[in-house]
């Protein structure tokens, strides 16, 4: 038998070598000839679901508007146009599949999409290999159209946008010193920061500092203080709107008065809804302003409002323009074969579109002006138009993109005091979450992965209650305690429900199963929370329930009332828990179950009841933590946002470092982890904050596996 195996393999390989060259599309000889009859099908791939769903939906609406108008006027070449939209859920692998499906299954003549540059690049590679033209409405990263001659776009590119903001800052704001704060996780933000940096220095300005954050992170005090210390005349903040609003609030709170500048990622109605008064007087670059008096703009805005009942954002305008440019090319093209059509698109000259007159350059990027808008009374108003560059900017050397927080101006004492204050407030929040992990672990010996989601729900429930009870403006004195008690009750109920339905049936099952169930519960809560009938797919601004007052000033640092309330409540809750566990009958029962549940059960303790109560207490503490988090940082990311997971994880690390199962350990661990984060971000580099935490975890686990306060567990057979 063995002798037969080898020859088979050799034969197979030989046969393979002969004819295995097909199937990569370049050589598969697959072309899609147009038969000149029937409707012309075009495709759109977009993030219709997932965390960037609003981008895709906005674009798709505008494309459909353009499509219906064109069809009402008789379509193209006397043929109707049909649109197929496929969702890619914000994942590049699915974007590639969606474009493949559009081209090979639906036989589209051209593809429109995407907003995100990463997804556009995934789709562009596919479109290029099948020789089907693709127009990206709003991917601004320079590299997108470099995928090949089939790919073009109708929005300006980041290198131009960076120049626009830099030019505006130099000429209109007369600024010479600007600080930069970018999202290191977003390619868009990082790239735009880089382009601005180069353009601004080429125009004779100075960058005072470059600070980084991770999208969704609400705690930016270290970075903002470093910015403030350098005393910039303006701050460039090239993130997305959901972070920009929150950052603006925090910046104003610590006394930064310089205007904030942003890119087109700020363009959303949510920007001022989240940022509120803190957004006033800030500027951002955009593709168009709906106030622009040009008839093309006003016509589009009116039609869009008539159909959808809302004002189109920049993404909508670009989607509309992409469709117009495509229809124009379809009409002009001598044939609808991919390369011919692509060449026709690339030859677009002086096309009057909503976002300006579009002429595509040799790299198939449009040459057109950009507008700067200013926010007044919560509405973006037209501020200036910046024309395209006529001559290249002088080259400036690249500087290292990292500036640590250390070594900047400001008093060393006040920086130290401030870092300590931040550490204590953050540590108190971590402690409240960590206690929930520790309590459940102490009693049941398993990590309740869903705990961080109960915390998230606590924050969101508090937000919802604040709205329902009408405390959003001018809350009475009892608003905070009332909402806190209600949120704690609701979350205690949630905790008990989770325990009953998901965990109790698994009592006695292997730990792995319980762990996986916990992850399942966590995923369920995260994703149910983002549904439109729950908390919705948009970040929100938490209204202040505590007046924003400064109680005292130490070394130039304000001790804010909010921080004091957060710390006071956290201390009270931790103290209460300590008394509960060590001074009451119930606490004794909990400790007994933790020590040995079988023996405890023999002693007449109702183990099931103790477990239920433990879950209720842990969840209530998490709810309190969520509310206090909302109070301190005033912004709530959507429930499926990774920032919540990271927050829960950090608190869990704190519990493990302190010694899981130990109440004091959780508190000490929380302070330690908060200190590592805050001091690391303030004195080393803000970019490596999460790495510090996990490094501390791994080191502690390797040196003292049971944590600082934990006792080594003896396993019995």
């Amino acid at each position, binding site marked *: 038998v063995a002798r037969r195996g080898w020859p088979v393999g050799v034969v197979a390989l030989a046969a393979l070598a002969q004819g295995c060259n097909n199937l990569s599309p370049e050589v598969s000889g697959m072309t899609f000839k147009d038969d000149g009859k029937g409707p012309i099908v075009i495709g759109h791939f977009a993030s219709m679901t997932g965390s960037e769903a609003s981008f895709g939906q906005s674009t798709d609406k505008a494309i459909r508007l353009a499509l219906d108008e064109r069809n009402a006027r008789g379509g193209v070449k006397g043929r109707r146009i049909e649109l197929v939209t496929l969702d890619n859920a914000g994942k590049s692998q699915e974007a590639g599949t969606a474009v493949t499906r559009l081209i090979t299954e639906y036989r589209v003549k051209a593809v429109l999409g995407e907003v995100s540059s990463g997804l556009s690049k995934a789709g562009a590679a596919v479109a290029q290999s099948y020789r089907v033209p693709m127009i990206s409405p709003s991917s601004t990263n320079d590299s997108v159209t470099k995928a090949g001659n089939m790919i073009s776009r109708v929005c300006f590119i980041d290198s131009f946008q960076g120049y626009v903001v830099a030019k505006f800052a130099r000429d209109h704001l007369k600024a010479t010193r600007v600080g930069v704060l970018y999202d290191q996780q977003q390619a868009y933000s990082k790239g735009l920061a880089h382009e601005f940096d180069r353009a601004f220095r080429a125009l004779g300005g100075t960058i005072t500092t470059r600070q980084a954050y991770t999208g969704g992170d609400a705690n930016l005090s270290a970075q903002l203080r470093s910015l403030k210390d350098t005393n910039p005349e303006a701050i460039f903040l090239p993130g997305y709107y959901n972070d920009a609003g929150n950052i603006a609030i925090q910046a104003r709170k610590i006394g930064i008065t310089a205007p904030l500048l942003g890119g087109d990622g700020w363009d959303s109605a949510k920007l001022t809804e989240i940022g509120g008064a803190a957004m006033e007087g800030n500027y951002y670059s955009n593709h168009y302003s709906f106030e622009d008096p040009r008839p093309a703009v006003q016509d589009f805005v009116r039609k869009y409002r008539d159909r959808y009942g809302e004002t189109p954002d920049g993404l909508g305008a670009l989607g509309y323009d992409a469709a117009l440019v495509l229809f124009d090319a379809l009409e002009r093209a001598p044939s609808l074969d991919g390369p011919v059509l692509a060449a026709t698109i690339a030859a677009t000259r002086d096309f009057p579109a909503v976002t300006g007159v579009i002429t595509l350059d040799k790299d198939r990027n449009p040459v057109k002006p950009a507008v700067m808008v200013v926010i007044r009374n919560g509405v973006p108003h037209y501020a200036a138009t910046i024309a395209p560059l006529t001559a290249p900017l002088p080259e400036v050397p690249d500087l290292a993109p990292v500036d640590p927080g250390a070594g900047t101006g400001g008093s060393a004492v006040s920086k130290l005091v401030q870092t300590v204050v931040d550490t204590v407030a953050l540590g108190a929040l971590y402690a409240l979450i960590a206690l929930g992990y520790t309590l459940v672990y102490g009693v049941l010996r398993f990590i309740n992965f869903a705990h961080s989601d109960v915390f998230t729900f606590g924050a969101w429930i508090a937000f919802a209650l604040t709205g329902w009870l009408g405390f959003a403006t001018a809350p009475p004195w009892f608003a905070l305690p009332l909402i806190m008690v209600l949120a704690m009750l609701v979350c205690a109920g949630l905790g008990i429900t989770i325990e009953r339905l998901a965990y109790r049936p698994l009592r006695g099952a292997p730990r792995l199963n319980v762990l996986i169930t916990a992850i399942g519960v966590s995923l369920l809560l995260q994703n149910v929370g983002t549904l439109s009938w729950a908390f919705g797919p948009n970040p929100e601004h938490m209204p202040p329930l505590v007046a924003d007052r400064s109680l005292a000033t130490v070394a130039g640092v304000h001790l804010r009332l909010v921080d004091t309330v957060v710390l006071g409540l956290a201390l009270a809750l931790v103290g209460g828990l300590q008394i509960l566990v060590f001074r009451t009958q119930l606490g004794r029962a909990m400790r007994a179950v933790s020590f040995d549940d079988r023996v405890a059960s023999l002693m007449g303790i109702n183990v099931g009841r103790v477990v239920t109560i433990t879950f209720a207490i842990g969840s209530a503490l998490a709810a309190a933590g969520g509310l206090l988090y909302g109070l301190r940082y005033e912004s709530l990311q959507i429930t499926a946002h990774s920032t919540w997971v990271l927050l829960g994880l950090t608190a869990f690390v704190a519990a493990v470092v302190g010694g899981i199962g130990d109440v004091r350990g959780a508190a000490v661990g929380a302070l330690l982890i908060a200190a590592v984060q805050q001091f690391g971000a303030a004195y080393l580099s803000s970019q490596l904050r999460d790495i510090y935490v996990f490094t501390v975890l*791994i080191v502690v686990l390797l040196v003292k596996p049971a944590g600082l306060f934990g006792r080594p567990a003896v396993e019995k057979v």
Partner: protein
Amino acid sequence: MKRVAERVAEHRIAVGPAAARSVGPLVIGIALAWLLQQWIAPLVGPFYAKVVLDIGIAIVAATSLNIVNGLAGQFSIGHAGFMMVGGYAAAWLTYYGSIQLWGSPDLHGGFLGGGDLLFLAGCLLAGGVAAGAGLLVGLPSLRLRGDYLAIVTLGFGEIMRVLVQRSGDVLPPVDARAAGLLGSATNLGGSLGFGGVPTYTRIFYVYVFVAIVVLCAHRLKVSSRGRALLAVRENEIAAAAVGINCARIKVQAFVVSALFAGIGGALFAHELGTTLNPRELGFQKSIDLVIMVVLGGMGSISGVVLAAAALTIVPELFRGFAELRMPIYALALIIVMIVRPAGLFGLKELWDTSLWRRLFGRSGGAPRAIARPPDKDAP
């Protein structure tokens, strides 16, 4: 004397059949991969071919997780981190290697030509580098219990993500030539992702690796080492008591699992229509893999293969219901854990299930010894 020689011959371990048993299926697997690429893929068209390709990559990644999670019972929720390490290592080699060798990162050579060989070398490098990372992550597992280990693997994935995000832009060919292969090792594209990686991943290569990974996992499962893994999974103390070096075998499982995950990452990196970026291979991907393993049955090779295929096809079928996709996944995960704690198939293989037996009469060739999960309450 003759009788002695006969008896020796009788008792000699037959090399032939053993080799056939191990090489035979691989040859069949390669032949099937070739069939899939040559005949099936052109027949179904490029879109379904891409779905088949995605399924293959999902099978490689999920089966690799099945080794450490299903067989050894060590919970890893940072498995996409190994894919990321492997993917970037391979992409670095093919992209910058192509530039050094041929001056441009474009596809080079035909079937098994220079480009393909470089790609296969990249896959091997990916496996090697990821295995090294697996050793690093596996070592703490000597001291850590299941849930702590999960956190360490998660931390590993996060640290990898932050490090890749901080890497420099991808160098264009001219600069890359000047920088040299090693000099460009930190230019991996940062948070925008590694663009311009040549797209060598084809159905044939993917399914050759599928064959290798699935066969290795299966042989591992039915070997004495696999039984040792299962023993560790069921009860570490009891396993140690019967003479199994638990620490050693856990680390081995981690290394093998990471190796295959790295190869999966390399295949992902070179696929047409994906961008290799740190967000894509983050926590969410790790969870997707865990779901595949859990639904398929922890330790069931064929079950996980089926689950990987099903969960790759489902999004294609139900693009319209995508908003409820994740809640439904999560609910399914919880319900499966409660109703069938060992996953849909448990340790069983497809051909051990009663439905299969009813349909096809007799069972396949799986050894009976481990077909049934150990009886928990047996005296």
